[in-house]
């Protein structure tokens, strides 16, 4: 009985904590699942928000490991930004369940599903793991690499910010307009580069580059993963080598976290060049904003084809 009383006293003592002292109005606490969303939220939120990013730009977004501050920050967040389309399925649902923050529960004003309204590609006709191990039932979630994504994501984030902080609506709208100017300048830079990429053939590791290829008119001649989420076998690599030779593919696009051992093997056999490019902001050096990442992506790929 003594132990019972002791345990419940311990529980009570930890549960009853003094309230935090009153302080000046705090900044809006924003949690973003990926660095792209964090960058754009910072552009619009300015000095009225503090932002925590859950996944690093270098990380395999499908395998983000739980960290203690993720839970603390999510537990106290005013606004939660996710890409959706099941991109963050390996950590967001359970993180939200554990954080138990009613402000950012799906459906609550502080929850922003940034893919809402986006028209995804590669929506599976049948939801079955027969066709892929890494199934995204709502379609390909890597739309942050679409050159049109910056403005789309900015609009979703603006809506979320205004919902939870309507008093600052004018401030956020002004900053969104300023960001649009930056985006417009970027689109002007990219337009002639699109022409240089149209019809070019690439081989990719994972489906990260589908939207970029669609927007630029590049052709994805093949993928290392025979089915999404399934690593290539030696037979798959042999087929890919044959395809690369037959189609005259000169570029292998991969992310830092992809299985680059097999990519190097294929490059060695075919003479194709490996380009390790960012698939999220801060994925490689000099890509600390979404626009900088897209600039880098365009520049590196165009540079490859210009040299051929």
């Amino acid at each position, binding site marked *: 009985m003594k132990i019972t009383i002791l*345990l419940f006293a311990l529980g009570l003592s930890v*549960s009853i904590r003094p309230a935090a002292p009153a302080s000046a109005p705090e900044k809006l606490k924003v949690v973003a699942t990926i660095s792209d969303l964090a960058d754009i939220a910072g552009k619009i939120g300015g000095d009225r928000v503090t932002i925590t990013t859950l996944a690093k730009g270098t990380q395999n977004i499908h395998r*983000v490991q739980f960290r*203690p501050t993720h839970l603390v920050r999510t537990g106290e967040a005013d606004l939660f930004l996710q890409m959706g389309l099941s991109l963050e399925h390996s*950590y967001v649902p359970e993180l939200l369940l*554990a954080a138990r923050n009613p402000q950012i529960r799906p459906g609550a004003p502080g929850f922003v599903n940034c893919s809402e309204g986006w028209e995804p590609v590669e929506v599976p006709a049948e939801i079955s793991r027969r066709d892929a191990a890494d199934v995204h039932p709502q379609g390909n979630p890597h739309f942050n690499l679409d050159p049109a994504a910056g403005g789309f994501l900015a609009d979703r984030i603006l809506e979320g910010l205004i919902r939870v902080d309507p008093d600052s609506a004018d401030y956020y709208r002004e900053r969104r307009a300023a960001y649009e100017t930056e985006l417009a300048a970027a689109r002007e830079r990219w337009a002639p580069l699109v022409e240089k990429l149209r019809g070019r053939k690439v081989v990719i590791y994972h489906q990260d580059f589908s939207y970029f290829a669609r927007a630029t008119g590049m052709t994805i001649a093949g993928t290392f993963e025979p089915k999404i989420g399934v690593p290539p076998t030696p037979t798959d690599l042999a087929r890919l080598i044959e395809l690369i030779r037959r189609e005259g593919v000169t570029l292998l696009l991969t992310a830092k976290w992809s299985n680059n051992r097999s990519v190097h093997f294929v490059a060695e056999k075919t003479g194709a060049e490996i380009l390790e490019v960012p698939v999220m902001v801060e994925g490689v050096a000099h890509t600390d904003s979404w626009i900088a990442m897209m600039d880098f992506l365009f520049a590196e790929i165009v540079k490859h084809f210009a040299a051929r």
Partner: protein
Amino acid sequence: MHSLATTFTLSRPVLLPLLSGGLTLALSNPFFAQGAGMTSPGTSRYSSSVHTSSGQTSRFTSEFNPGLGCVIDAVVDYADPGEGASGGDVSLRIFELNINAFIDPSAWAYVVVTSHELESLGLEEAAVAYIGFEGHSTLRAGRFFVDFGKQMQTHLEELRTLERPIVLREFLGDELGGTGVQYDTWFPAGDVPIRFSLGAFSNLFQAHEHGAEEPEPGGGTEPLVPSRKDLDEFSLTARLTGLMEAGERGTFQLGASLRHIPEFTFAYEADETLDRSGMANSVFGLDATYGWASDTGIQTFLGGLEVLAAAGDLAAAVDDPGDPGELVVQDDSAAGYYAYADYGWTQYDSAGMQYSRVEAPEDPDATLSELDLYATHHFTEFRRLRLGVTLADSDESGSETRVYLQFTNFFGSHAHGINW
């Protein structure tokens, strides 16, 4: 009358096409068995709306069905025990069925049904988690694996090794499932989330479910808790743990756990007059875990140590099985630990070791130890092959070597979860 006639006149032109359309639909019904037979270009082949002929959801609609997931875990092994016959075997070690669903916005429920070694299905967990409190609290009620240390909440097939460390098996059982209630909550202390749980259970002794044990000569003893209890006779559990970041890529966790059984009886199977009631024992544990992941999250390292101590009435045996006069209770303490290290060099491959050593509860002068070495390959996230060897050593039964190949498949809904 006037209004009826008017209605008939107006409806007739509409009714005929409707009837003919309905007839066409009825005749073409087989085309709709797998969804709409024809769609216009660009429209989805699958609708997210709820299909009911009545326009209402009912007991026959399936949209609210819970998520189902299954696990098949098969083992091929060769064992060379110190005593008894050596040889190989193939077994369907575990079949597991998981069912998960929200009941309403404030509660969710889950059920885990398993069959071990082709035995009949057993209910391993069936619990409701109430999450409607303010703050970060959860109240779980039902039957479930209790919150003790780093491994006891985990199902066998999800461990890094084939079995739990021997210290956990000796002190807590293969599994620590209990029927009762558990309250748990977490709060931030700066950047460190601290979590604690308190549980009260009807019975935390493990029933002999997984593989029948050989009956002891002259009858063995079995710990039994009272079927009806006073408040202070319920078994208790508690856990306090905190997680902190260790550098850019590391996470460090410390935890303390308790399992206390305040009242039970050592029942002697051959002669109940020798039963000893008024028994009590406790198990304490301290755990430390370090996890690390590379910048890409592909390379990972996990290392940890859990130290346990058991105290109280740990075991009982008759002093002379041929002429039982007294059931002698081992009122003592015993200690043990396990340590492990695991390194993943790709997202599909990892290898590691686990060493465990424990003083036998029935004789603290005797020790048992196990060393596990293993390599794991994931074909995909859901299909896993593991090659391992277990080297066991016991003061009583000598040494045993077991080499195994474990093949585990997860299909259907699949939970990731935060287990801390």
